[in-house]
């Protein structure tokens, strides 16, 4: 390998010491690939973060990461990675206001339920200050309050459906919460656990909601099952939602990979263009004794340097965009734009390293193959073609 020659050829092809047109071409391609990669990375981060945001809402507010279906008092903290345990009761009821009614899922929770972890998923209004009334208090979402046209401190009636009777129970709206995702909170009402147990008299479903750390859900679930507990996870309880999120994520990743493949193919156009424009130079170098191998390698390396730098810059740019998106999304969410009402806008951005790795590796892999394929034409350029004889 003639390293100095190789380095000189690559350096010049990359635009170092080259004319303006050559520099412009490299910069244009670098910019184009960078923008495509940044868009792919940004879109993937956005979709994955939103999916995770929705999943977190369901796990933290809807059902907990794991549900252990037992009424016996158990200490779950010795199990791996368990960070929160709440005894919860749930049932269904019709809620009435003077102007509307709705079937809701009523969830009875203890005082410690809205821990810091769960509170991060909510925005709460100013709570109702206790008056002389001793009516039970419930927590509605802003969405449900809007449907029922009630405010904090208003009275609503809960029609409790039990086996023996249907009887109304007047309650006061103690506060309004907003999870940021209307699909979840439009029919979720929180009440005190003791109140629920008293009202439903054992007809409610009682279980323990467990929050677990990180990705330990499956491990903890296995441990609990091994000890004979009936355990379900949040995705089993919300099967349709979890499946949709998973399918959407995979479909979006598929689209991103397809775009990455197209981008990889586009990169081979750069090498084709370079070779086409440099036919005479390639012929001249061959005439001077350079092997086709070293010429091909110099073009391949040039295109790959452009590709790798673009992929790196694009990834960093996409990540920078995505990581700075939260304040913008929060401000959009705060404006309660009706057309965006059913989208989760307030969520934390996560970096899906594996997805990003797949997208970038596919792009680089396809470009390697297509560039190598396109550089076969170097072999077809005869040294004689550089000379214009009589």
């Amino acid at each position: 390998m003639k390293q100095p020659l190789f380095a000189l050829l690559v350096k010049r092809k990359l635009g170092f010491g080259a004319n303006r047109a050559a520099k412009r071409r490299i910069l244009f391609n670098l910019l184009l690939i960078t923008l495509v990669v940044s868009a792919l990375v940004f879109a993937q981060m956005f979709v994955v973060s939103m999916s995770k945001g929705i999943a977190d809402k369901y796990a933290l507010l809807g059902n907990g990461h794991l549900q252990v279906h037992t009424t016996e008092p158990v200490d779950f903290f010795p199990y791996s990675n368990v960070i929160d345990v709440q005894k919860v009761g749930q049932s269904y009821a019709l809620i009435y206001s003077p102007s509307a009614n709705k079937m809701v899922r009523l969830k009875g929770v203890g005082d410690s339920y809205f821990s810091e972890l769960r509170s991060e998923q909510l925005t709460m209004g100013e709570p109702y200050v206790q008056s002389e009334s001793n009516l039970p208090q419930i927590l509605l979402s802003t969405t449900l309050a809007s449907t029922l046209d009630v405010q904090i401190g208003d009275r609503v009636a809960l029609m409790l459906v039990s086996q023996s009777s249907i009887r109304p129970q007047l309650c006061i709206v103690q506060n309004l919460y907003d999870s940021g995702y209307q699909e979840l909170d439009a029919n979720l009402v929180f009440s005190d656990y003791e109140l629920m147990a008293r009202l439903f008299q054992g007809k409610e479903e009682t279980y323990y909601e467990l929050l677990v750390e990180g990705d330990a859900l499956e491990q903890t679930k296995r441990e609990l099952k091994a000890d004979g507990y009936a355990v379900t996870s949040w995705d089993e309880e919300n099967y349709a939602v979890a499946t949709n999120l998973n399918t959407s994520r995979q479909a979006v990743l598929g689209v991103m990979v397809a775009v990455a493949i197209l981008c990889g193919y586009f990169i081979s156009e750069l090498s084709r263009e370079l070779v086409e424009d440099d036919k005479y130079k390639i012929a001249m170098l061959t005439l001077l004794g350079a092997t086709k191998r070293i010429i091909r390698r110099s073009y391949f390396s040039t295109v790959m340097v452009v590709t790798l730098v673009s992929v790196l810059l694009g990834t960093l740019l996409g990540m920078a965009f995505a990581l700075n998106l939260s304040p913008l999304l929060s401000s959009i969410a705060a404006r309660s734009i009706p057309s965006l009402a059913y989208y989760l806008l307030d969520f934390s951005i996560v970096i899906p390293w594996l997805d990003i790795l797949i997208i970038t590796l596919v792009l680089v892999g396809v470009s390697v193959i297509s560039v190598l394929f396109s550089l076969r034409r170097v072999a077809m350029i005869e040294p004689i073609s550089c000379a214009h004889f009589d």
Partner: protein
Amino acid sequence: MMKSAEVLRLEQVFKSFRATLRGGPPIQILEGIDLSLERSTSIAITGNSGSGKSTLLQISAGLMQCDSGRVWFEEQEISALGDDKLSQLRSHSMGFIFQNSLLLDDFTALENVQIPSMIAGKSEKQAKNLAMEMLTTVGMQDRLHHTSDQLSGGERQRVAIARALVNNPSVIFADEPTGSLDEQNASLVEDLLFSLVQQQQVALMLITHNYSFAQRCDVVYHLHDRKVEVSS
């Protein structure tokens, strides 16, 4: 087989081209050419346009295959060599000068002369020193960092001569090297070429229309009616 002093030998070389893309009888260009070139000697090939002079040069330098016959270069049969061997041979033993200097326009005069040495495996520093030396020999020491478009036709041709000679080849193939120059520059380039060829003891195969230029060579061949004959 080649004699010891020979660097190039053509034996019964035939070459024809297809008349059209759609076929038709081939056009015979060269017929039974026998030619030899010894070390430190020069030959000129003259002939009318289209007589096959350049084809003869390209076959001699292994840039084109002949239909039949044999071409020997430094005791190796060119047609039997693979791409890598041919590249090596071109790099170490051949120099080319064409009508248009054909410099690499991305590179400076210095780099244009440096590249053949780097191809031949010399370090960047060695190649640079050799290139500077060679460019000084052809009087281009003040134009080292000028690119092709910043040089005149005569200057470009001088750089091309330096590039052809930098690896101290056995043979220089020159195809109308003064064809695109004015009389004064043409004369300068002719003088330079012959003085360097003699100085470095290189064999020269010169293709030219210019009879007085051709006359400066040791032997002048005239290509006529597909055959070469020694010019009187």
